[in-house]
């Protein structure tokens, strides 16, 4: 992170740090606050408004962001935007944000949020309700907005969208399977006849990715993690069937390799692009990488589709992506909103699509010819895939719920527990957590911030 040294010359003489120190948070937090105080003080210099924007420091992504921020500054001479380098790893970035926001640091003014963080930050009062500030969420895909809604307000604008995809080999398979049963059959056959090592690869390590894979199976089998009223439904019969299907795929039919239970996105991509697998579940980022003949042996021989459905469910993709929110303690909410509007405007989104292959969140962009040729998946098809994407449960305690679920899913998949028993344990623990923090539907829910009191936002997790 920036040390503030470069800007020390512009420090006003009587600069006081943010009033409130963290109640406790250890030396690191205190140091961070000190550093932030230094950085923050510089903001009120004669330069006018200075906004800070956290983001990646490397690669094409950092370059396109730099270009766009420069363009914004050229159009808004009174505002200067400074980039603050934050870790790319989601866990680390999250931890850093929480420390900053707990310390009521006014910077960074803008926050780049993972799709599952918005309700947490909103309930904590760390980010501003953007609709109250005047932001318009209507042009964005409704499901991406739903993931950013808490207690009736929109707290972040979707910046780009990610969705779980089923990649399939066009030279081995006639078309994407419509059902999970068909997927199993085709994957096994490909393994047998076409001598691919693996039929199907997905992310099975104990981490957030496993929950997204499970969510996609679960949706296909007609189940959900949490229902619209906020009840945990992860121990339903559909959920048991979905998890059993995943487990049997590894241990009984064997079309998913056992090693997948230690794999994250990249390991599955390596297996697929080396031509070792007939199917892969992954995010869109893998597409351009696998089209690159330098590293991939399947270039031109694969396509992407939605995940299959089961007998009782619909094809389901997990919704991912990045959102932009405004720090509740910012000194410049108006300028920050201006920057948010600019970054989520069509021109910037199209540029990001072209340069870094990220899918815009504005629905209208997919209609005309605007995006044609910019992204590996044709616009009309991409729109269909995005509209099938389902947010994970929209709740401030999602991360904690997810880690409880991850452990039990992994226990079932590694045969330490049977699927029903594992899911019942997970559901019990998840309900216990919701009750403990006062987010149990129907119970007393004066806990989380917000004026309107709808217990949980509509979601199909």
């Amino acid at each position: 992170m920036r040390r503030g040294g470069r800007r020390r010359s512009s420090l006003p003489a009587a600069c006081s740090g943010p009033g409130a120190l963290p109640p406790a948070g250890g030396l690191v937090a205190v140091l961070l606050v000190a550093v932030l105080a230094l950085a923050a003080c510089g903001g009120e210099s004669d330069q006018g408004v200075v906004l800070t924007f956290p983001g990646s420091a490397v690669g094409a992504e950092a370059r396109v962001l730099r270009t766009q921020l420069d363009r914004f500054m050229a159009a808004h001479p009174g505002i200067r935007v400074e980039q603050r380098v934050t870790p790319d790893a989601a866990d680390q970035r999250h931890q850093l944000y929480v420390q900053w926001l707990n310390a009521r640091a006014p910077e960074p003014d803008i926050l780049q949020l993972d799709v599952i963080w918005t309700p947490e930050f909103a309930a904590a009062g760390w980010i501003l309700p953007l609709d109250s500030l005047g932001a318009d969420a209507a042009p964005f895909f409704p499901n991406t907005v739903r993931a950013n809604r808490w207690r009736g307000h929109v707290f972040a604008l979707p910046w780009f969208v990610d969705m779980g995809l089923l990649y399939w080999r066009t030279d081995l398979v006639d078309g994407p399977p419509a059902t999970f049963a068909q997927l199993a059959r085709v994957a096994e056959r490909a393994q047998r006849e076409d001598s691919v090592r693996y039929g199907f690869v997905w992310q099975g390590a104990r981490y957030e990715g496993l929950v997204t894979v499970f969510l996609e199976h679960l949706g296909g089998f007609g189940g959900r993690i949490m229902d619209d009223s906020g009840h945990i439904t992860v121990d339903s019969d559909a959920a048991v069937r979905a998890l059993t299907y995943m487990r049997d795929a590894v241990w009984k039919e064997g079309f998913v390799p056992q090693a997948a239970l230690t794999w994250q996105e990249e390991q599955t991509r390596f297996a697929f692009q080396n031509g070792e697998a007939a199917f892969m579940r992954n995010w869109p980022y893998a597409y351009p990488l696998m089209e690159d003949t330098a590293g991939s042996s399947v270039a031109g021989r694969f396509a992407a589709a939605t995940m299959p459905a089961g007998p009782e469910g619909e094809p389901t993709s997990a919704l991912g992506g990045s959102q932009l929110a405004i720090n509740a303690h910012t000194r410049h909410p108006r300028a920050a909103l201006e920057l948010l509007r600019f970054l989520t405007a069509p021109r910037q989104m199209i540029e990001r699509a072209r340069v870094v292959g990220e899918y815009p969140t504005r629905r209208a962009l997919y209609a005309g010819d605007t995006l044609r040729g910019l992204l590996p998946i044709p616009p009309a098809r991409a729109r269909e895939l995005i509209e099938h994407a389902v947010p994970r449960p929209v709740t401030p305690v999602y991360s904690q719920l997810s880690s409880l679920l991850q452990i039990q899913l992994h226990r079932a998949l590694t045969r330490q527990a049977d699927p029903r028993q594992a899911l019942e344990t997970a559901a019990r623990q998840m309900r216990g957590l919701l009750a403990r923090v006062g987010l149990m539907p129907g119970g007393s829910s004066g806990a989380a911030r917000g004026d309107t009191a709808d217990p949980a936002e509509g979601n199909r997790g």
Partner: protein
Amino acid sequence: MAERRGLEARERRLGFELVVPALGVIVLVALFPLAWTAWESLHLHDLRMPWRGHPFVGLANYAEALGDGRFWAAMGHTAFFTAATVGLELVLGLVLALAMNRAFRGRSLVRAAVLLPWAVPTVVAALLWRFMFGTQGGIANALLSKVGVVDASFVWFIHERAAWVPVILADVWKMTPFVALLLLAGLQNIDASLYEAAKIDGAGAWDRFRYVTLPLLKPAILVTLVFRTLDAFRVFDLVYVLTGGGPGTATEPIALYTFDALLRDLRFGYGSALSMIIFLVTFGLAVLYIRGLGVDLTGEGG
């Protein structure tokens, strides 16, 4: 006499003044954080849920830990890891120390070489072992599948028992040299004439080991035991890198669970309570060793 007593008092005061800086440092870096953690452990403090406030909750966090299955499982894993690694390291370390204690050409070279694994940073060692036990070109599967112990595609890290194998081997590989070194120091303190006397009395090699070496090595063994037990009980980095505590939480030690509670869930109150429990257990173990077994950590007296 009176003058002498005055001198003593002055000396004592001077002595006290001289240790004040050291005591100050101890208070600052050891007692203060400890007291803070203890205080924190009596509060509800979820960084991710500021709406719950920061109320004093007495021993509620401790009560939660005692009723938490994952906590007890983690304690069990820690105890198992400690017993297995410390036991193996002690036996292997003793063998190594005895070998290195003999005079042979290149002895100092061997001593230096033996220390190498210990000098490797734990995270690097863990990555190394993770790779060796991996399915993609791991040497463990290549060798073991030849002799028919496991299948070439066996995935160590998804079996609740097999996942322990790389963890324990890695720790034994890394820490045995340290144990050997401590024991070697002990061996070199044993007077060679005792062995001659035993020999004259007709004691064989085993008897000399059993009745001369072991009893005289006991202080060194106990010191080693204290160091290694307390170290093993706090194991974190090795498991974090090798298995991440998985599959599920099957290899999760208490330090890793605490890390999760503190830095992933950001539950400072509960995490502090877990930290205090680790502290109390290691402290209890240390007291037990020193009082119960008469371990002399300073090396004075006998």
